[in-house]
């Protein structure tokens, strides 16, 4: 990794500098391809199949019929250029293939060649291209330089969602034998063991017991963290990073404090010990369905009436937007809470009902800003109210900390910038991309650090937390603490 190639944070007023395009700037960045063993484990060919070209085109044809969005997006782009300066990976790298429209065109040009009249007869005229080996490599490289954050969609006058194109591209690649090691290995592990970390039940019991002991020592309360408790009313599903990683685990502790104080009979599940669903990233709907099914099956087996998801962005999108379509209805849940809920919704509800009290002075000295996570901001909702995904977390923050500073409005809420590590890119072999992709977030953060002395960047997504705490030091923002929202809630809660 070349540190010198990381652009310095530049802020000119509130306007970012749009880079001049630099062809091939990120052509050397490619994430590791899945090993044959992993590919086989997830039911995919181990290596590039012999008739890969025809298989790929036929898979594209299938996806076009199954995903209306993809089909419309292939046709409706006018190349107006509105999206070209909106992607954090383009802003951070200057590689033109990281402009959303250019990324889509990798697939669209092949689509035109094989599925449109103009592309079949006048390929040069309309920019139609054949799917050859170099194109295949570009697909693999640049569909793995998109975090599927949908920021470009906000600015697209046709509503084109690049994440649908990226997902289709990755699905096709995986189906002909070129999956991504990082995501496919995680999918294999969650199928095999129940969580992305591959943590088996005894290990999970250990972790939760230790955590309970720590909280008890800290607070003097008798805390027990139930696992697979059939007497529970509520299933809690968090990203497995919450069990280990910093700063995630402090957020989990905060959640447990909230549940304890409110007197909720909750349980974790060893079968569904993972909120994340990496099949969303790889575009594999069958895998996404299976991974989502685990949660529903566990909830029914435990006989709970509520499902609550922890702080995880894409898990929340799957739970909020896709789960009822993927795994059927939620008849078994409490009719008052007929769908999976977000931990922020639960905590907010408890706060409003007076079942928990928060004292913001316990976070004195902290100046916080909130990083909206892409899948929450643009792929889901919260609290049953319009813009709830922005309102609810901020209301919790307001009750928990003395001072909140908002970053620039073109870097928050619906226009929020991705942390740079979402969409299955949170892997070490993409570190250079991750650092560069965090540039717009770093610029927005730098501005509020300079103007208001912000000390904490708060997130409600495990990927955002890992990514930002790893890359912010590269942008000279290592002093800013990346923090779970529920860590601050946990500090402020009156026990």
């Amino acid at each position: 990794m070349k540190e010198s190639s990381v652009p310095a944070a530049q802020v000119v007023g509130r306007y970012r500098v749009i880079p001049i395009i630099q062809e091939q700037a990120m052509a050397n960045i490619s994430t590791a391809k899945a090993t044959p063993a992993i590919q086989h484990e997830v039911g995919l060919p181990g290596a590039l199949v012999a008739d890969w070209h025809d298989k790929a085109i036929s898979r594209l044809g299938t996806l076009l019929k199954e995903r209306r969005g993809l089909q419309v997006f292939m046709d409706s782009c006018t190349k107006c250029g509105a999206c070209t300066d909106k992607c954090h990976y383009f802003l951070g790298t200057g590689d033109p293939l990281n402009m959303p429209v250019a990324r889509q065109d990798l697939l669209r040009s092949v689509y035109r060649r094989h599925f449109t009249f103009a592309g079949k007869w006048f390929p040069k005229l309309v920019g139609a291209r054949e799917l050859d080996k170099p194109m295949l490599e570009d697909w693999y490289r640049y569909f793995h330089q998109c975090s599927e954050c949908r920021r470009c969609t906000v600015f697209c006058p046709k509503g084109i969602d690049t994440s649908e194109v990226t997902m289709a591209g990755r699905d096709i690649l995986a189906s002909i034998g070129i999956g991504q090691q990082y995501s496919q290995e995680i999918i294999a592990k969650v199928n095999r063991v129940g969580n992305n970390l591959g943590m088996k039940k005894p290990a999970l019991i250990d972790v939760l017991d230790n955590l309970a002991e720590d909280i008890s020592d800290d607070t003097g309360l008798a805390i027990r963290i139930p696992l697979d408790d059939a007497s529970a009313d509520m299933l809690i599903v968090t990203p497995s990073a919450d069990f280990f990683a910093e700063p995630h685990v402090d957020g989990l502790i905060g959640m447990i404090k909230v549940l304890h104080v409110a007197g909720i009979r909750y349980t974790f599940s060893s079968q569904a010990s993972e909120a994340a669903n990496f099949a969303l990233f790889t575009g594999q709907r069958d895998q996404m369905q299976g991974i989502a099914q685990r949660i529903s099956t566990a909830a029914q087996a435990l006989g709970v009436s509520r499902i609550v998801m922890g702080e995880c962005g894409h898990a929340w999108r799957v739970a909020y937007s896709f789960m009822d379509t993927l795994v059927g209805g939620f008849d078994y849940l409490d009719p008052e809470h007929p769908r999976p809920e977000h931990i922020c919704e639960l905590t907010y509800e408890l706060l409003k009902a007076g079942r928990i009290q928060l004292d913001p002075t316990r976070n004195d000295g902290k100046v916080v800003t909130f990083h909206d996570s892409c899948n929450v901001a643009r792929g889901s909702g919260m609290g049953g109210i319009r813009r709830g995904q922005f309102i609810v977390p901020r209301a919790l923050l307001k009750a928990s900390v003395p001072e909140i500073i908002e970053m620039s409005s073109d870097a928050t809420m619906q226009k929020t910038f991705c942390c740079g590590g979402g969409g299955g890119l949170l892997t070490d072999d993409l570190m250079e991309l991750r650092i560069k992709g965090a540039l717009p977030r770093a610029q927005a953060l730098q501005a509020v650090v300079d103007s208001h002395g912000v000390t904490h960047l708060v997130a409600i997504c495990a990927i955002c937390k890992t990514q930002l705490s790893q890359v912010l030091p590269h942008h000279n923002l290592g002093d800013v603490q990346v923090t779970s929202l529920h860590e601050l809630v946990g500090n402020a809660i009156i026990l």
Partner: protein
Amino acid sequence: MFDLALALSYSLALVWLVGGCAYRVGIWLKARNSLPIPLTPAPRTRSGVVMRLCLELFAFRSLARADKTTWLASLLFHYGLLWLAIVHLRFVFTSLPTFLIPFIQYSGWATLCVIVGLSVLLLRRLLVDRVRYVSAPSDYLHLMLLISIAVSGALLKRVWPVNLFEVGEFLRGVFRVSWVPLPDHAGLVVHLLLVLVLLLVFPISKLLHGVGVIVSPTFNQRDRG
């Protein structure tokens, strides 16, 4: 003979236009909507969705968020074109309906809007490195075709007048599939041929993007949470 060929081409082009657009939109609608992908925050009600689509269709809201110059140029072009399309309704009627008079009165300004709007879009495509990078020859040709139609139309109106009643007779003939001779006017033939190309290209190109806005699930699905 040429007149007949042109009239016949127009009749066929209209069939091609309607059939082609229906075919393409049919492909869109036949594709399954497997998972809901509204871009949130999304409207929670159907009327909210209609509102959202109207804002996108008539005010180009997302484009306004993205880039004000492109937005303004696009608005000028599209509304100018709509205005001129209404002006061309005069050829449907044998006597001029009064509601068209104000449209005809300001058609010069509309033409100017179209030409200025399209020129800005073309210049942007040529001068902004990012947009140039993603442009195929067809993207330039679409713009140049539209500019030539607008310019040739303006010339017919202002520099090289043509008998409008006779043009109307010819076009009404096209709709009735009965041949009426065209006024002997080379400029008119150029204008009509350019429009013919537009009609042919429309259903097999990106020009159908307006319908795409309505069919896009990110816009037309509601937040059901």
